[in-house]
């Protein structure tokens, strides 16, 4: 088996790619996809800890995290579509109704 450091480093790289996407993209849907990528990166690190400890509890945690991700996807896309109806755009720079 590969050492655990490699899996954790891969998870860290995926998480940082997600951070870059959230910070630089203007399209709300791409930002949303990057959030999913970050969730996946954290799940990967949880699974690798679970595998290298020989303990299945980590996989249960990932299962719950998956269900929360599904709920988050549904609600997030509903919000994005509601914003699109009001603004005719999914550009997050134009969502400034609550801006002071």
């Amino acid at each position, binding site marked *: 088996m590969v050492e655990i450091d490699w899996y*954790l480093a*891969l998870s860290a790289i995926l998480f940082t790619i997600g951070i870059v996407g959230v*910070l630089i993209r203007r399209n709300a849907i791409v930002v949303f*996809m*990057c959030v999913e990528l970050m969730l996946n990166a954290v799940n990967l690190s949880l699974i690798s800890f679970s595998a*290298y400890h020989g303990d299945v509890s980590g*996989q249960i945690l990932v299962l719950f995290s998956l269900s929360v991700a*599904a709920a988050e996807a549904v609600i997030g896309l509903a919000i994005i579509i509601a914003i699109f109806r009001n603004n005719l755009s999914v550009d997050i720079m134009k969502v400034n109704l609550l801006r002071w």
Partner: protein
Amino acid sequence: MELTTILFYLFAIVTISAAAVMVFSKNIVHSAFALMFTLIGVAALYVLLYADFIAATQLLVYVGGILILILFGVMLTTQGRTFSFKTSTVNLTPASILSVAAALLLIYAFVQTDWKITDSGVRDETVHELGMMLMGEYVLPFIAVGVLLLIAIIGAILMSTRLSANNDGEV
């Protein structure tokens, strides 16, 4: 080199390059398809980490569910009289400096830490054990997740249905 090592490097390269394509592609549909390759790569890595059930769930929930939802979102939001974007990226330099620093810090912390590893050798399939744990020790969170998903469905229907003044409160 062992077969699992080669497979790990292969899937790691696929996952990271697809993620990079997803973030930097100008076309949203290309981003969505790159996300599909990333999710499949992560599922393959789950299989390498003895998590067969989670890998199957990842394929069903993410690739089969969330990705299709995202593609629907892409199609619903790129039609008709939409405003086009002047630039697709903002704050490129500060964001990349910040995230490279974050990546280096994370990798340094992960490599420097002395992880306690208990290798239990050859492992069996995890489905049976997971089912026993879900129905025994973790039954309360399991029910809570079910309620959460129900609330999410109701919320999504409420939010994405048009509630305007000209149809007299009918949804």
